[in-house]
């Protein structure tokens, strides 16, 4: 692999295991020899460092925002795993989405300047625009979800908002945002349901063919993968396939089910000991599940 990869790990729902997956995926990639940097974007509530056994944060992304350091790489912290470094979220700061747009843009630009084979963005909960923007600068948006209605609902919401954000990114600079607004108002005027984005693209092609093609091409490049966490039964396993199928049909997004992580008590035991489960319980079901997922992500 000779190209830097940016993976964004999100999913909307809090507590679905995003940071846990980010930390342990980072460890597995680092142990496989890749240089990895994980950035925690759960400002004010980040736990990434905890999953890696670090309890004191001497420098965070907040220091970079407040211009205490010149480069984003200056707030990188080495971990005990060779090749793995992290950039922590400030703990006593406003949320990332609350930053001025110039500050957010500065961070977005500097992420791609970080040196490493893999840059993993731990997005934190929610689907605010700034979270979606981070997801859209990545090569791959990885949604971590649970086989639970609320978590799945938030994942679909994240996917829909990701599409809308990407469309807005393209049509706003061309002063065509009114087309999306008009379509949204018109569709809501008829019936109160969320229509397939394909219907908007049909509408856009009618009113501006070239813009329609441009948007369609951009949407086709969105690369979304789903990981199912805390899987207990074979029925749970199939939920991932179903999410992938239904997202294609009803949201219009090509979503790949990358695999699952079985529910495993050793994950909780390792977390209580401030140890990553992939190292402390490397033979556990969860560690093996994450390895399968990592191999599929690398494929």
């Amino acid at each position: 692999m000779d190209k830097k990869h940016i993976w964004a790990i999100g999913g909307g729902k809090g507590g679905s295991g995003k940071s846990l997956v980010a930390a342990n995926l980072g460890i597995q990639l680092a142990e496989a020899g890749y240089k990895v940097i994980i950035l925690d974007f759960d400002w004010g509530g980040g736990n990434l460092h905890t999953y890696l056994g670090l309890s004191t944060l001497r420098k965070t992304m907040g220091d970079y925002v407040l211009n205490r350091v010149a480069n984003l790489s200056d707030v990188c912290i080495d971990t005990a795993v060779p090749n793995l470094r992290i950039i922590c979220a400030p703990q006593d700061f406003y949320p990332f989405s609350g930053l001025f747009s110039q500050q957010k843009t500065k961070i977005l630009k500097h992420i791609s300047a970080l040196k490493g084979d893999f840059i993993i963005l731990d997005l934190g909960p929610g689907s605010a625009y700034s979270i979606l923007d981070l997801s859209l600068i990545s090569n791959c948006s990885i949604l971590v979800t649970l086989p639970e209605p609320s978590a799945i609902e938030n994942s679909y919401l994240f996917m829909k908002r990701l599409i809308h954000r990407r469309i807005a990114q393209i049509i706003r600079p061309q002063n065509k945002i009114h087309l999306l607004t008009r379509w949204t108002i018109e569709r809501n005027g008829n019936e109160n349901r969320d229509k397939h984005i394909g219907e908007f693209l049909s509408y856009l092609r009618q009113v501006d063919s070239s813009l329609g093609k441009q948007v369609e091409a951009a949407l086709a490049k969105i690369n979304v993968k789903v990981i199912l966490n805390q899987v207990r039964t074979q029925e749970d396993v199939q939920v991932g396939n179903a999410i992938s199928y239904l997202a294609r049909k009803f949201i219009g997004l090509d979503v790949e089910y990358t695999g699952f992580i079985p529910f495993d008590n050793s994950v909780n035991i390792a977390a209580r000991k401030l140890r990553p489960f992939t190292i402390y319980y490397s033979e556990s079901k969860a560690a093996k599940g994450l390895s399968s997922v990592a191999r599929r992500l690398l494929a």
Partner: protein
Amino acid sequence: MKKTDDLNDYEILDVDAKADAAEIHMAYIRARQALEPGSLAHYSLVSEEEKEKLRVKIEMAYHRLMDQKKREEYSNRYSKDWETPNKITDVSSQTQNLEKMGDKSSILPKKKHGNDITEQPIADLNTASELTVKETIGRKIASKIEKITLLFLLVIGVIGLLLFIRTLFPQ
């Protein structure tokens, strides 16, 4: 990115146009499972009416593609307009191993490293919280100084503007 209504039979089942009967059957099972009543995956996604519409399309697509004659007729008639269906990832190898996840073959190739994270000392939590409190107070003071400076500059700006206006209109 097509509307559900515009999808052809292959796209409805997420199979390649060259898929054999076994692949079509597996895809049909997968599609049906996704829309099974009570499935967690379609909770709140779309209305019952839309789900039912897709169920009907799945049944129609399956029965047409499993009938060789009907499939040929259908394909000859519409294939020129089709795009390549999306690739489906097969997680069946992991699925079969849900109960046997102890298999070592699933581990990524690892490099040995001397500094084992399990031996890493945990930093003193008290020190950490003290640091956080100090940093918080420091940042609050810095924020107040910033606000006072901005206010001062604003006042100076307003006075300067007034003086400038007065110079322009001395009476």
